[in-house]
């Protein structure tokens, strides 16, 4: 059985005679780094939007938001921080936009990294301004709530009591948006935005399953594949996968924004990496061909 020695590190075929083809196999890594940086910066500044077809999972989330019954809240659980911001930030923004576009009142909450409350708050205030949505009436931020699963259990019976005060430290009972919100059943949809494993299991185990509150999620691209089984079983109604999901949501609600720009940078970076792989293989094949002949 062949070694698992990386097909990589040691001498390349044809390396002894540094012809053009063999040089294609050994592009110095600095060039790769430089080109990648240039492509990303270029696309962030001058994005070339590519046609995006929304996937079934994103359509599921859009529909879930659109069909939230009158008088019920959308709860966006923003459980992320700067480490996954490039994906979860646009996702949060896209979900907020979808709520505002469909005139659904929403609240933000953060269970895991405390920093998430502030980051999501900044995004929400910025978007709300564009829609002339008022804090406390059309949306609110419950802030960071310590205690993860204990928070969820406390929420079942009495939401205002669990929340206590909002992001600004004022009692939530005083907010017009909270009028009529008593138990967890007054929440029409939970959208979990996160890069953390375990949050979904908690929501499904404690709220979606036992209380029947619809649940959707937005995940980083790395962790999303693990959650398809929940999607198949209907426990997750819809899901955004990475920045791609955010871009698809923006297409669905016809609001190209940060997700689209990030996706164009992503696309061209992927194309660049694939080109490098192809060039490397071409170099390898041609150098090998020349070596056999000569």
């Amino acid at each position, binding site marked *: 059985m062949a070694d698992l020695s990386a097909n990589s590190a040691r001498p390349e075929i044809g390396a002894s005679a540094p012809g053009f083809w063999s040089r294609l196999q050994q592009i110095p890594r600095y060039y790769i780094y430089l080109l990648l940086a240039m492509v990303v910066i270029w696309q962030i500044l001058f994005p070339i939007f590519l046609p995006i077809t929304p996937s079934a999972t994103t359509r599921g989330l859009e529909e879930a938001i659109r069909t939230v019954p009158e008088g019920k809240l959308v709860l966006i659980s923003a459980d992320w921080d700067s480490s996954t911001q490039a994906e979860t930030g646009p996702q949060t923004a896209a979900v907020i936009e979808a709520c505002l576009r469909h005139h659904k009142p929403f609240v933000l909450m953060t269970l895991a990294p405390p920093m998430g409350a502030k980051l999501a708050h900044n995004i929400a205030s910025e978007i709300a301004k564009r829609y002339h949505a008022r804090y406390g009436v059309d949306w609110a931020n419950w802030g960071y709530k310590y205690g993860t699963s204990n928070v969820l259990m406390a929420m079942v019976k009495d939401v205002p009591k669990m929340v206590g005060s909002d992001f600004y430290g004022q009692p939530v009972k005083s907010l017009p948006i909270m009028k009529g919100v008593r138990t967890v059943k007054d929440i029409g949809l939970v959208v979990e935005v996160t890069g953390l494993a375990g949050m979904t299991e908690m929501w499904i185990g404690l709220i979606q399953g036992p209380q029947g509150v619809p649940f959707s999620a937005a995940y980083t691209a790395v962790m999303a594949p693990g959650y398809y089984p929940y999607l198949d079983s209907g426990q997750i109604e819809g899901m955004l996968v990475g*920045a*791609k999901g955010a871009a698809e949501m923006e297409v669905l609600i016809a609001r190209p924004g940060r997700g689209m720009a990030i996706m164009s940078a992503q696309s061209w970076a992927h194309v660049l990496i694939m080109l490098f792989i192809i060039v490397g293989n071409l170099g390898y094949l041609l150098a090998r061909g020349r070596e056999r002949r000569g």
Partner: protein
Amino acid sequence: MTGTEIAILWAAAIATLGVYSILYRENPVSRLLEHIFVGLAAGYLLVTTWTQNLQAKWWAPMVDSGRWYWVFAPVIGLLFYFIYSRRLAWLARLAMGIYFGQAAGVYFREFFPLYSPQIWASFKPLRPIFDAAAPPVSVSLAWWSVVIQNWLFVAVLLTVMSYFIFSVPHEGKAGRALGKSALMGRWFLMIAFGAMFGNTVMARISLFIGRVQFLLQDWLGHYVHWLAQRGM
């Protein structure tokens, strides 16, 4: 923006660019930043060990609630420091023994929650099942393709597992069959590794996009109106 915010902005930008200099090679700037980073992390570790762990879990119960027996915790913890004495090192080993035991015990606890769902999720029926209540995939597919997928799933799982059998020589009739299965398993492993690699690229590029957005919009954009306008 306040003076502090400006200082934070510039420090963050310089730190970011400084770290990127390591892409060329390990250099004096990256070395300096490395030491600053390690220093900050060590300081932060001490602070959080007190504020998030010891203060709440140890000091408060002991001093505020009068549970004096918590004083035994540092006694055991300090046993670890005896590794620096050859004569007393065995006491450190005693403390380590606690953690060895815990490591094993915790694994015994994790075994089923971690792996039993994986075991019964592998019980895939190998014949068509017409059950509208439980569609097996989100893409609507013909029944026969679902059956093929299940066969494939089982084949991949079992051949991969056979790759990790170490104590049977790949000789003789049965051994050669095992060898073939292991080779198949190895190929499936390579496909899986390639897929994982490809699936990670996007997340990693995202990280850099996040930094570029910071540099262009938050930092430069603060000074260059043109960039700020392009900011999203």
